[in-house]
């Protein structure tokens, strides 16, 4: 407890839910303020920029569709990071797992171009999950058996995955008609996710919501989810209760990787209809922010993903103006670290207590 003149700052015993939510909102507002400052300092109108971004994200049905399209991969990667984080594992490799999932799904699409859509699409979802999970398995095993930091291993594999897809797209899967641009051959219609009306919003969004429900149920109502929560809160208690730590590390990483892998499938099958090196605009990394803002819970992740989807769409809209789209990344980073800082402050309470209390006279001593 600290005294600052007439103010007393004390720690709360529990951070109230309302305060936490308010803190998040305040952090976003502050970050937007910081962004505005940076924009104005660069000679751009913050007001116009934000206006453009807002319109692109929410102004009409098409805009909303675009926002949800952008949110879809973020829901997957956000869930991926959140699930791992519940057990205190940091999956920084969602980006690479996304690429591997995309590659696996694409492989199916190229191998069975004439298969019926009703079979091919679900198979591709599974392939995506398997691809992503496989990519996370190595780091999971290394962490479980040797204690090797999953942060570094998953991260390094990101770069390897991206290079791998680069290789595929420049080599074996190259589209002969693409004249210079690194692209794969296009998918056939049976490999393409259905979309809503004439918007770009595709079934991947529904799969994402489904995944969120699955994750929510998993953590809340299954034995596995219970073990994950206990291990994440207290490893000694988990040991005490006989919970298998190493096996659970590997399984959690597989689940996490699988979710990120489906993100990859969703992007190639729902948006791009082929595989190419830039299927991801850093979705794996943004997923980390989304998971943190969403407090590692499924519903929180969905809300945060939509917010960041909006930011993403807003950023694209800026490309047609002279405002540099990199301001979006600045905003994202700022939201994150302001949130993180503010959340800590939310644990304190300030009281007004002027003047020192009179000292009570010394009590009678017992004989």
């Amino acid at each position: 407890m600290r005294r600052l003149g007439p103010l007393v700052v004390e720690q709360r015993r529990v951070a109230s839910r309302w305060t936490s939510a308010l803190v998040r909102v305040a952090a976003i507002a502050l970050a937007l303020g910081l962004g505005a400052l940076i924009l104005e300092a660069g000679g751009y109108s913050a007001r116009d920029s934000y206006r453009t971004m807002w319109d692109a994200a929410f102004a009409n049905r098409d805009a909303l569709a675009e926002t949800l399209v952008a949110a879809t991969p973020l829901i997957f990667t956000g869930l991926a990071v959140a699930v791992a984080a519940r057990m205190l594992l940091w999956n920084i490799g969602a980006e690479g797992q996304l690429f591997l999932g995309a590659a696996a799904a694409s492989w199916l699409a190229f191998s069975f171009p004439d298969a019926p859509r009703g079979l091919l699409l679900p198979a591709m979802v599974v392939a995506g999950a398997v691809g992503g999970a496989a990519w996370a398995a190595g780091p999971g095993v290394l962490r479980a058996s040797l204690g090797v930091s999953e942060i570094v291993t998953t991260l390094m594999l990101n770069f390897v995955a991206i290079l791998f897809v680069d290789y595929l797209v420049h080599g074996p899967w190259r589209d002969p008609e693409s004249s210079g641009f690194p692209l794969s051959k296009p998918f056939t219609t049976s490999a393409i996710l259905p979309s809503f009306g004439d918007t770009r919003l595709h079934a991947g969004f529904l799969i994402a919501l489904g995944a969120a429900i699955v994750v929510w149920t998993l953590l809340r109502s299954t034995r596995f989810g219970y073990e994950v929560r206990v291990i994440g809160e207290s490893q000694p208690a988990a040991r005490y209760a006989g919970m298998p730590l190493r096996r659970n590390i590997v399984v959690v990483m597989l689940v996490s990787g699988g979710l990120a892998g489906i993100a990859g499938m969703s992007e190639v099958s729902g948006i791009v209809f082929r595989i190419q090196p830039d299927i991801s605009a850093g979705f794996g990394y943004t997923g980390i922010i989304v998971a943190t803002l969403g407090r590692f819970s499924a519903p929180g992740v969905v809300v945060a993903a939509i917010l960041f989807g909006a930011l993403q769409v807003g950023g694209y809209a800026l490309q047609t103006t002279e405002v540099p789209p990199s301001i979006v990344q600045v905003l994202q980073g700022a939201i994150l670290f302001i949130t993180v800082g503010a959340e800590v402050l939310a644990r304190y309470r300030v009281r007004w207590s002027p003047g020192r209390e009179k000292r009570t006279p010394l009590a009678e001593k017992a004989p």
Partner: protein
Amino acid sequence: MNSVWVTTFAIAMAAGTTLVFAAVGEVVAERAGVLNLGLEGMMLVGAVTGFMALDRTGSLELGVLAALAAGALLGLLHAFLTVSLRADQIVAGLALTIFGTGLSAYLGRDVVGKPARDSFDPLAIPLLHEIPWVGPVLFDQNLLVYTSYVLVAAVWIVLFRTRLGLHLRAVGESAGTADAMGVSVVGLRYGAVIVGGSLAGLAGAYLSLARTPGWSEGMTAGRGWIAVGLVIFARWNPLGALAGGFLFGLMEALNFQAQAVGITLSPFFLGMLPYLFTIAAIVFAALVGGRRLGAPAALGLPYRREER
């Protein structure tokens, strides 16, 4: 004499110096108990500010100073978040990387691809550079590379032979104990993280002012992350960081020199080498080090004095 290999090793040293700066800085921060995952962002900001300063003033020295200052500022921010506010170190670091990456792109938007007005050219040290084999590799480099040698030695001496270094290590092993002994945990952690940040900035400036003069978005290409892995491989020792930096530089050099050296792998797979090597390196460190990896015991843990 196999001069192709000598050239390769020389390139390795030149390429690895970025990593050496960043890794030594991270060693200092982690020895004090603070994990700084914002290296990539800090390096990029250092690269862009260094280049912009050079572009405005024509002075390489000012470029270096600007980069050091920019890195220090971001380091200060990270220290504030993790030490004073006791935020989670991993999240704070990631936030700074994303922020720094975006900020660097934003700041550098007007100088992308602009030719450099000047750069740190190789400066052969008389006599020393003529030593067979070792000479051209170590002593025919640019000024910043020589600085890195001095830096490694200086940091080693400070860490292991001075009172300041002892206090720093104590803070990283057991902050509570250090605090009870009257050592300023907050002060040392701030200092260590700021130093780490400046060195990360310098690492970035090395790229934009010496190695590949110029600025392009994301020019660090993940080196900041490699540096984090490198610190583990180096067992939190600056000498290890120098050796590791060289080894990683070698991966890059091999990619560069592939044809000359006689390697005929696809450039993509060659490109994967540094990253795969990092993984191999930390797995190796884990296997060899046994249970206690040598990590500072208090690494990653925030410190609060009035604990009950």
